[in-house]
């Protein structure tokens, strides 16, 4: 393999890794706030992409994306208020089944609204054949857009969680809900906020990558599974680790095409997930000490 091809694979891996990381961060936000895994996370990504495509037919691209993100955020908040908020101490099994049900429902509604067709937003700059060449490595500007916007999102999230009152309240709520409540934090609102935030991030991810990967009513499931793999790989709840794990998985996948047919690409990533769960469920970057206190 020559060095150009090597870098080309890296670029492809990073592109996919970005998407996976975004979905994983969405998982982590909700997981941190509630201790549940939202199996409908991939559907937020799909909804974001689809809504933006529909909106972009009658408004300029940037405003279409922003409106799509806002709409999906509202949907996320509604889902929490309607289905999650009023349950008292639901079991994990119950939550898994409810969120799976939601994901099916959202998918079917999307099928009803948009049909089975494959859609995509236009490229943000240039067209599908525009490339920036660095030496012999060709990069689509959209890759830069995707990684750039994701990077900004991750940094913004970090600032939000560390330096704003609201972000700190959310963190307090995730580390000890009862103590947070005693300090006067409305923990229920924090949960709603976490769904809103995570829906928004998913939707933004969906908008950014849709020119390259396309969206379809059922593209959420695959993304959710990859995102979850990445979240586990990095250590559930750890958003920065998710970014690293996302890149890792993306690159591994893009190199796996080398040794195995493309049809088995998912098999590789899920085998990695299973291996990780069997050997070290606390994740690549999770500490063994804290994991001893947790139930896997």
């Amino acid at each position: 393999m020559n060095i150009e091809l090597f870098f080309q694979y890296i670029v492809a891996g990073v592109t996919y890794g970005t998407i996976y990381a975004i979905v994983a961060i969405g998982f982590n936000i909700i997981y941190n706030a509630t201790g549940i895994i939202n199996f409908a996370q991939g559907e937020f990504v799909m909804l974001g992409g689809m809504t933006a495509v529909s909106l972009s037919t009658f408004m300029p691209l940037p405003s279409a994306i922003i409106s799509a993100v806002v709409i999906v955020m509202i949907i996320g908040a509604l889902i929490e208020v309607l289905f999650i908020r009023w349950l008292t101490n639901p079991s994990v099994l119950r939550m898994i089944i409810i969120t799976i049900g939601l994901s099916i429902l959202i998918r079917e509604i999307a099928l009803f609204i948009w049909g089975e067709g494959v859609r995509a937003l236009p490229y943000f700059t240039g067209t599908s054949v525009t490339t920036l060449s660095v030496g012999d490595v060709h990069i689509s500007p959209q890759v830069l857009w995707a990684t750039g916007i994701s990077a900004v999102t991750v940094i913004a999230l970090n600032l939000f969680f560390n330096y704003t009152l609201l972000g700190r309240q959310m963190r307090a709520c995730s580390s000890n809900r009862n103590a947070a409540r005693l300090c006067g934090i409305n923990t229920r609102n924090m949960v709603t906020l976490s769904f809103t935030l995570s829906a928004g991030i998913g939707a933004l991810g969906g908008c950014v990558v849709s020119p390259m990967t396309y969206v379809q009513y059922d593209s959420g499931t695959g993304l959710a599974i990859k995102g979850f793999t990445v979240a586990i790989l990095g250590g559930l709840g750890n958003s920065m680790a998710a970014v690293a794990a996302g890149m890792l998985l993306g690159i591994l996948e893009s190199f796996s095409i080398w040794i195995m047919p493309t049809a088995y690409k998912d098999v590789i990533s899920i085998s990695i997930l299973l291996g990780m769960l069997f050997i070290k469920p606390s994740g690549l970057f999770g500490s063994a000490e804290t994991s001893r206190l947790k139930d896997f």
Partner: protein
Amino acid sequence: MYRRKYLQIIGLVAAVVGVQLAASFTNTTHHLTQLTMTGYYSLVIVGLCLLMGYAGQISLGHAGFFAIGGYISAFLTTYNLLPYKDRMFVSLIAKTGMLVNRRELYGNEALNFHPWAACIIAVLSAMVIAYVIGRPVLKLKGHYLAMATLGFGIIVYRIVLGTESLGAADGISDMPGFVLFPGLEISGKSSLRIRNYYVAWGLVIISVILLVNLIHSRIGRALRAIHGAEDAADAMGINTAKYKLNIFVLSAVFAAIGGVFLTHYNGGIGPSEASIMKSVRYVAIVAIGGMANLWGALIMGSILNFLSLRGYLGSYDDALFGVILIVIMLFAPEGLISRDIIGNIRALFHKSPAKGPL
């Protein structure tokens, strides 16, 4: 207690016979085709019910075991070994009497595994795979367990979808019928419809008898203890890991048997049988039935599968399952067929003022 147990089984037998008689009298025996398929799916469901409801372990990968059973038996009974007749391995198998010569659809000679041999190999494979997967997977709990089993299901799905010799997206078709013993063949021929109906539901009845006895035994009590509080059960001296693994393997075997028989009945299998949606559907049905409620799962499973197979639910099939999952889990986590359901609904509308110091 015991009388009730047998009354229920007699009730099931009576229902099975009654449905057949009703169908024959009203000249609607074509419904029996879907009912037969429903019967085989019910095998998966009662197995999963044991795992989820009684042992408390979720599995989002049971369609994988169903597909392993179906695909292995389909592959072995259709893959022509004639070109390899003289290879040592093949001639060794031939000596054990596991191979049969038959004429294919277009009159070509073919050398395949006997359906019985294929069936046994398929079920044993599912068993071994369940054992190997189950050992590490069942150490996990909650989301991790759900995701690991889901991952297993996806791997099976991707493999059958991506493998050329398993027919890729088309699956395997043109399977020979499965002659259980002379005079009783499992195949989709309409002349054999009533017999096949009884084979399917006979299997269901046998499994239900097995499971009911299991639930009311020491093992069943141990399982419920695990479901209630695993650590407490462990402390009481119950080997929780062993029980969980055995039940996982048992439920995988049920799924695989369902897969083998349904595949023979349909004459083939496609990758959709291994899809995630199928696994979710099985979980949904067990949940609707009320988790630890074998009869509930069996009844709801029969009704929903039959409606879905007959196509009454149209294109809203999947959506309906989603809605059912949400509604049941929100309002009646104990299942539809449960004694508390009326109380639950009443409690929903009459919110009594909160009691106690809070």
